[in-house]
């Protein structure tokens, strides 16, 4: 049942038009493809690989922290483990996670286009990502780096051992993949919308990816040049950030966080877009306050550029600047709060199907609220002075990045699985895994808030005994969380071969992507769709209320 277009859904018989998966079986047909859907699959495979490596590093960290003494890893080994964990998870999983897989796959489908605006550029950005990834693998194999993912100077530029320059090069290169992806999305959304697909009819998923792309394009180059300067300092003694050479280490922090704070929104904005789709589809109801939610994405992307100084409250930054950044950081919470309240209002009087994607979405909202509100605490100057650089911060950003982004990633994986693979996943297993992930996540990361407030700094591999109970609870939770993440791998893998064939629109959802077959043919639609309704035009159960609409 489709309402995005008043034409009957065009579902071609399998023989008439092969799906994108059947458009070629050779390796070459995958590696040289310009089909956005195939490139999305390439990304999915490669980011899953890096998620695994990052997770192994995380496992080492959690094992080491079982005891207060440093008995599993040496001090240096531990430092390399969390550095690799951070670098890989941030740049090789979280940043590309939702945009480059689901964004790549869905944006053209959702706006009724045949592909992204620059298909070859899209393939190029995957290759750039792969080159960067290979360099990172070299870094891992050659012994890693001990700078942390933040590369603070002068530690990274003068004192650190390890393959710092190679790691910087990897991150530098991966940045160009981000820039090209963002550019491609922006142009696609502007220039390839189907006839009738006005801005007010864009799915919120597309809005949030548009906002993300702004950050990709405008923030990433600053990181690129900054890391280049760190490498120059390390290699040639160009002391832009080295006080011994006349430079200023705080300048590095300014430039680094000018990218890295908006980068948090690169990770969370696409997730917010996913949740808007999941909630409306499960509730079979129009989103509450479409424009507020849409503009909230843009507002988050823009205001997100004004708040980076809240990472520097105790760094020696001028306290006037700190007071300004604190105020701006509180302001950025407003659009996020709007989204959460609007999702809740969307559920009100809906026709709610308690499916696995909704469970993931509700889990996301809970964790995102917890992460966001503790973020608000960190924006408060006097509180931040105490908990900055402690486990409180670690807990906070894991709630946003793992509890938020990764949960949304799994939610998206279930929701669009039928569209991407043409198979249905086993619903009962999926609900079970959603619950295991939610419980496992909280057991892993909630204790870290307490550890942080008690005063345990981050990046410690040995710690006072009084912290051990909470550390052990956290490590046990990590085991549960790992099980929760492996479960979907198993049953989704099973469903690839044994799952029931998926119809074009298994959810009864309204987006354009559900009007074409599952999986879609090479150019998405047999004929150009014409859009005549909004994105969430669900039937209203009571005909009387129609007059109010």
């Amino acid at each position, binding site marked *: 049942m489709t309402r995005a277009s008043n034409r009957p859904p065009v579902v071609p018989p399998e023989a008439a038009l092969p799906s994108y998966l059947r458009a070629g079986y050779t390796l070459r047909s995958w590696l040289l493809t310009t089909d956005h859907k195939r490139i999305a699959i390439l990304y999915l495979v490669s980011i899953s690989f890096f998620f695994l490596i990052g997770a192994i590093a995380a496992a080492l960290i959690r094992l080491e922290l079982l005891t207060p003494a440093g008995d599993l890893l040496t001090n240096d080994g531990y430092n390399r483990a969390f550095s690799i964990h951070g670098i890989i998870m941030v740049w090789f999983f979280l940043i590309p996670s939702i945009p480059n897989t689901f964004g790549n796959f869905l944006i053209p489908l959702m706006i009724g286009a045949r592909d992204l605006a620059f298909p070859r550029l899209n393939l190029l950005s995957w290759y750039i990502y792969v080159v960067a990834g290979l360099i990172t693998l070299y870094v891992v194999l050659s012994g890693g780096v001990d700078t942390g993912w933040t590369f603070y100077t002068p530690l990274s530029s003068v004192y650190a051992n390890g393959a710092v320059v190679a790691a910087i090069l990897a991150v530098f290169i991966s940045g160009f993949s981000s820039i090209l992806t963002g550019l491609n999305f922006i142009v696609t959304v502007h220039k390839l919308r189907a006839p009738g697909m006005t801005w007010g009819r864009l799915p919120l998923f597309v809005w949030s990816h548009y906002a993300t792309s*702004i950050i990709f394009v405008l923030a990433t180059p600053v990181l690129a040049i900054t890391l280049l300067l760190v490498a120059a300092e390390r290699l040639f003694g160009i002391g832009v950030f080295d006080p011994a050479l006349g430079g200023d280490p705080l*300048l590095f922090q300014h430039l680094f966080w000018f990218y890295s704070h908006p980068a948090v929104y690169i990770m969370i904005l696409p997730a917010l877009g996913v949740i808007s789709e999941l909630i409306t589809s499960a509730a079979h109801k129009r989103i509450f306050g479409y424009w507020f939610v849409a503009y909230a994405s843009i507002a988050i992307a823009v205001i997100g*550029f*004004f708040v*980076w100084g809240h990472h520097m409250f105790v760094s020696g930054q*001028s306290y006037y*600047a700190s007071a300004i*950044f604190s105020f701006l950081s509180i302001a950025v919470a407003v659009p996020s709060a709007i989204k959460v309240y609007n999702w809740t209002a969307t559920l009100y009087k809906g026709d709610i199907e308690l499916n696995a994607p909704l469970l993931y979405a509700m889990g996301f909202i809970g964790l995102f609220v917890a992460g966001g509100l503790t973020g608000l605490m960190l924006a408060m100057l006097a509180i931040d002075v105490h908990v900055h650089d402690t486990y409180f911060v670690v807990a906070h950003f894991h709630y946003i990045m793992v509890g938020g982004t990764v949960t949304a990633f799994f939610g998206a994986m279930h929701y669009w699985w039928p569209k991407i693979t043409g198979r249905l996943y086993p619903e009962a297993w999926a609900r079970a895994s959603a619950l295991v992930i939610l419980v496992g996540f909280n057991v892993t990361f909630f204790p870290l808030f307490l550890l942080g407030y008690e005063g345990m700094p981050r990046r410690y591999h040995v710690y006072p005994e009084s912290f051990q109970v909470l550390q052990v609870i956290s490590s046990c939770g990590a085991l549960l969380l790992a099980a929760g993440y492996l479960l979907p791998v198993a049953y989704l893998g099973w469903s690839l071969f044994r799952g029931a064939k998926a119809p074009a629109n298994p959810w009864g959802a309204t987006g354009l992507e559900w009007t074409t077959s599952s999986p879609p043919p090479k150019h998405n639609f047999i004929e150009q769709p014409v859009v005549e309704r909004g994105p969430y035009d669900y039937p209203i159960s009571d005909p009387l209320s129609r007059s109010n609409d």
Partner: protein
Amino acid sequence: MSIAVRRLLLAWIGLIALLALTVGLAFLPLGAAKPAAAYLIATAKAALVLWYFMELRREGGLPRLAAGAGFVWLSVLLVLTAADFLSRN
């Protein structure tokens, strides 16, 4: 000479004149206003290039927005960073 070509030539004359002006101003005793004047003139030159050479005058709102975004965001970076450096101690 068509109007379009004449317009480009005039823009170029303007640019060269501004260049002469900014070099001239550098030798006047203006004190702290000197860098401000130099950057003001640089902005005017950039605006001429954007408006006439890059033809933003013929464009709609979207390309103007795209061309302006980089400058706006760069000024966010510079202004807030300067806010720290200027107000330390």
